């Protein structure tokens, strides 16, 4: 298959299988990109999410652009991004045109209560996979715990945590380098 078309259809698939926004997409991305296709490693996905959280726009789009760009340059980034948006455009247009009460149907409400519970478990499982790659020593464990607790109790821009953690990473590794 044409490489651009493959990027488009793969991300269209990811978009169509994501229920609940950017974080719900993480388990789907791990399966479709890291496990099935080797398009991105687990570490790269973590990096993309980190950058996505502190740059403007929809996180899912940021990840799609990164992966597309890496595989096929700028046109690849564009193909992946529009692939991701394609299911939304089709589904929402149909609902807006014909099914305005969509979210109020009992079947939809009940199905979504079930889906939400499932997505929580999927995301937690995805976080555990990330954790195994990201938390490798005492320092990274401390950073994880500090950010997890702070982000749970204070609403500060994620960018602050990411910038501080980057500075800490550089500082600590530099000191180690000098000692060695």
């Amino acid at each position, binding site marked *: 298959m044409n490489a651009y078309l493959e990027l488009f259809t793969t991300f269209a698939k990811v978009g*169509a299988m994501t229920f609940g926004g950017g974080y719900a997409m993480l388990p789907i991305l791990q399966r479709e990109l890291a496990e099935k296709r080797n398009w991105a490693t687990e570490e790269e996905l973590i990096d993309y999410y980190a950058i996505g959280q502190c740059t403007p726009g929809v996180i899912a789009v940021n990840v799609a*652009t990164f992966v597309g760009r890496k595989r096929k340059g700028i046109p690849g980034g564009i193909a992946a991004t529009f692939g991701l948006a394609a299911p939304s455009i089709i589904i929402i247009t149909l*609902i807006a045109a014909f099914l305005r009460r969509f979210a109020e149907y009992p079947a939809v409400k009940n199905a979504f209560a079930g889906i939400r519970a499932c997505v929580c478990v999927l995301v937690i499982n995805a976080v555990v996979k990330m954790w195994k790659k990201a938390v490798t020593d005492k320092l990274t464990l401390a950073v994880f715990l500090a950010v997890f607790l702070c982000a749970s109790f204070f609403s500060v821009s994620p960018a602050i945590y990411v910038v501080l953690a980057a500075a800490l990473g550089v500082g600590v590794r530099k000191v180690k380098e000098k000692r060695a």
Partner: protein
Amino acid sequence: MIYLSLFYEFFKTGLFAIGGGMATVPFLYNLADKTGWFTASELTDMIAVSESTPGSIGINMACYVGFTSAGIFGSLIAAAGLVMPSLIIILIIAGFLEKFRTNNYVEYCFYGIRPASTGLIASSAALILSETVLNLELFKQKAGITEIADFKLIALAAVVFALMKLKWTKKLHPIVFIAFSALVGIVFKLGGA
């Protein structure tokens, strides 16, 4: 020209809404006020639909607002406007990263960033979980645990968790678990509807 203003408004939203789909909501309320293309109560419905259909919530909302304001082309243009700033910014950052991938400092940065990013996502996951299985409004009114916790949803979450660990089912695609849970939701009326 409504297409041009739609593109401009959503480009702005994409540029200034940092941290994912729900961050666009305040911009959309502002847009409803300012332009009269749609009302605030229509927007509430749009958010509900965007959350209960597949795809990124931000893109879904842009499509819905675009369609309501200016038909099918409106939908396309609003979505394009929303994703454009991310697309440009990320293409630039990706270029830099590729150039400096082997630089030690970049590697050190990510050594610190990865656990922070994992912590941020873990905290969002904990929030979504507590919102899903607990009724925090009742918690504030000091209700008993049996009223606060939704045991049917907790049971479903536990079943999905077990299926993901079992030898026979753990390799299944996530969408299989999602479809299963949707079905369970309908059969057992988990949404209470």
